[in-house]
């Protein structure tokens, strides 16, 4: 298999601290309102406690990216060397079609530039030998960079509950699911 970089989201370790999401803003100094990486709490149907388990998500750098497919000005490309889906913002005309079409909500509209933008997987940092800003910032090592060509964790899943199953796009993100502690509730009020 060809090299394909992706994020490994370890929901068992993730504490939903939003450090990764803010580290992204810190690196790219995004306009207020522009979010490349978001930390999504799992709804109680999936994890039975309010805002206690999370998926940190950005672009999934899909094998068959919807954004790339639908862009009328061909402003997206997939790097042959590592599979990163790159948005060439200078070519973007701000039609919003990628924003509409990505099922994971990765591309966002920059209201000042009036163009779309999304997670670049920090390819400039990667090319300089650095980790992506979000990965480097994670205090619990819950967000890591993987190469699907060599990644072989049998416990990892591609489409856990809470993440839309889009097989044709084949997103490159992999997950480990959150766990629950043994819970001892108070007797006097239960």
């Amino acid at each position: 298999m060809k090299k394909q970089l992706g994020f490994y989201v370890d929901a068992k370790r993730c504490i939903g601290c939003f450090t990764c999401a803010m580290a992204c803003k810190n690196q790219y100094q995004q306009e207020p309102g522009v979010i490349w990486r978001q930390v999504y709490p799992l709804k109680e149907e999936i994890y039975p406690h309010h805002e206690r388990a999370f998926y940190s998500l950005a672009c999934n750098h899909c094998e068959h990216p919807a954004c790339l497919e639908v862009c009328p000005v061909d402003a997206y490309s997939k790097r042959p060397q590592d599979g990163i889906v790159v948005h060439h913002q200078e070519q973007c005309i701000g039609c919003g079609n990628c924003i509409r079409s990505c099922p994971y909500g990765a591309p966002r509209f920059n209201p000042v530039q009036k163009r779309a933008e999304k997670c670049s997987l920090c390819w400039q940092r990667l090319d300089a030998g650095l980790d992506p800003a979000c990965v480097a910032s994670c205090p619990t090592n819950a967000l890591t960079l993987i190469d699907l060509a060599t990644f072989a964790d049998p416990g990892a899943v591609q489409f856990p509950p809470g993440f839309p199953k889009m097989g044709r796009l084949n997103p490159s993100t992999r997950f480990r699911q959150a766990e629950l502690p043994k819970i001892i509730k108070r007797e006097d009020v239960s």
Partner: protein
Amino acid sequence: MSPMTKQAMERILENSVSRRSFLSRLLATGALAGLPCGLLRPGTAEAGQVWEGGYQTFRNACPRNCYDTCSIISYVKDGVVKFVEGAPESSFTRGGLCVKGNSYVRRVYSPDRIKYPMEQQGRGSGNWKRLSWDQAMDKIARKILDIKERDGSLLGLALTKYSGNFGITNYGVEGMMSSLGYTTRMVGTPCWPAGIDAQNFDMGSMWCNDPEDLPQARYVIVWGANPAWCSVHSMKFLYAAQEAGAKMVVVDPVFTQTAAKADEYVEIRAGEDCALALGLCRHILDRGLYDREWVTAHSVGFDDFAAYLRDNVTVEWAAGKSGVPIAQIKALAEEFAQARPATIWIGYGMQRHVNGGAAVRVLDALVAMTGNVGKPGGGARYGHLQTWGFNYHAMLQKPPEGSKGWLGASGPKGEFDVSGGAGNAKYADRALNINKTAQEILDAKDPPIRMLWVACKNVLSQDFDRPKMLKAFDKLEMVVAVDQFFNQTVEQADIVLPVTTLFEDWTVNASYWHYWLSLNEQAIKPLHEAKSDIQIAAALSRRMNELAPGSCTFATEIDSKDWMAREFNKDIYDLFGLSSWEDLRKGPAKAKLASSASWADGKFATPSKKYEFRSDLCAKNGHDALPMYKEGRAPYDKLRLLTPHHKFAIHSQFQNLDWMADFNPAPFVYIHPRAAAQRGIADGDMVRVFNKVGEVRLAARLTSDVPPDTLLMYETWYKGLAFNCQNLVDDTSADMGAYKTGAPGVAIHDQFADVARA
């Protein structure tokens, strides 16, 4: 489309109920960021950059008085901080920051920053007028001289300062006060004083193990702390312990994020930590699982404690008090006592009760009787001041000749007071309880408090009983606030002075949890007209001496870097293995510890030099000599109200930034579904939370993360929102704190309230 069209459309669409609910759902998921309503937001500064290399780097340190006190590297180009990262040299933070630390660049360049000195025509009016620094210093200096003339002393000038900006040179604010004469000081700490006193009584000092030795623990109880939010860099050490086979148990009244990551979560009735801990001790005693050898060799008073347990404590009683089932108390006790080493992380939240100090003493006793004090991977971990032995050059200033002050006893002015009180001087500062600031201002006489200087603190967000504080402010003739944003205290100030961020001046920072020391270099020139606290002091001193030569002893010209360097001494250099402070430019340094464990040599700093289960010093300070049960506060309303820290803020800082609002736009009160159902409250409803102190209006979130008898809201300041939880928190004292910090703590979590649909 134009905003007008968009607004018109929105109005049409507002007819649809689902539209609103979907929008709120969108807001919750952040998906709205892609909506064209983004066009309505103001555009700001220079945004949109990529990593390009070739940066100049500087060493900085987060000065927010947090467990982690992260060492920062700032990346600068063309005199602008482009981004920040954690320093990889620290094995505690391992190159990481937190969500707040990663927002620092936005904080520096925020369009909301206070840019120059300003004067408000009418407090709360928002009618601000720009002043030059000369004008501002002139107004302030004349007021100070006016007070001195009227009262014959400066006791009418009060300082309230805490740890919002916590560099060592920020103690120059206290220095500035001392250099003016004897003043009134709000002393003590709202944070952790009850526990400090407790650990001092038990062991002679507050001194925790190196948190980096947590992976050696075989059993960890995190008791009333939430490191997943308040010490994110400690989590990896807790995980490492778990991965090495240790069990992690979280004891907390709330199902916190840390609880979700534990092996076991024990929900406890808030304020009954004492009872549960005593129940554990009793069961360990009954099973003979305590460390007889250690107790005999290293402690005094254990037999008295054992007798107290046998006579007064049963597991059944503990279960009744705490709500924790008997079987679980027994299991927890047996597991904890049989694991070696076992440790307890004692949180600050659990001592913010009227019996908080007593509870910490029992937890200390639990760790000690199982022989876990002094062991790597063990310990009763609360905090430490081992790495704080600076010169406090900026703080220790002499009053002008002939100054008059307070006649009478004077104790410590806080946990970091190294001056040793007033000593033999004839006069002292007037010490008032920082945790009752409002009442103290209202009560102060001869002279009354005429002027309040607020620095490194947000009085109207953080101090207790806000309605009373507003009344107290009415008594003040002048309020000067030194800050970076127009927060709720600045709203009630007469003059505001813009202060620098960490990137704009020199200082040095230590932690009360880990053992790293960080230099804070000046990375950029101060923005706008901001000055650091010591530069403000120098500017005030210049004007004071122009108007009345000799009226202020503070230096009139200061080289901040030189003043930072003057804080170092040989002991600090030896402790950290430094030849000069310049070594810290290569990265933070860690203290050379003989052992990762505190008290590893078994020599305690108590009068008996042993661990004191029975502390006569404690008795002398008005408490029980033994770690004993102390009743909690009687409820004064239907539900308990907890107001702990949020992950997006440290107290009133950071949440106000627009970047933070992108992730957390508004506050909620968290209510158990059963309590909500009884009141007809649905998820998302606007509600009124009210008690004898005041009232807060906000939206409700229904969750079983909180027990049915508890309401929870996070204390923080949202820009543009009136939300303020101190409208519901009174200023009732905790049991301990006066001994080491000058004033008792405050029972923040012994509050009660009710809730109804708004």
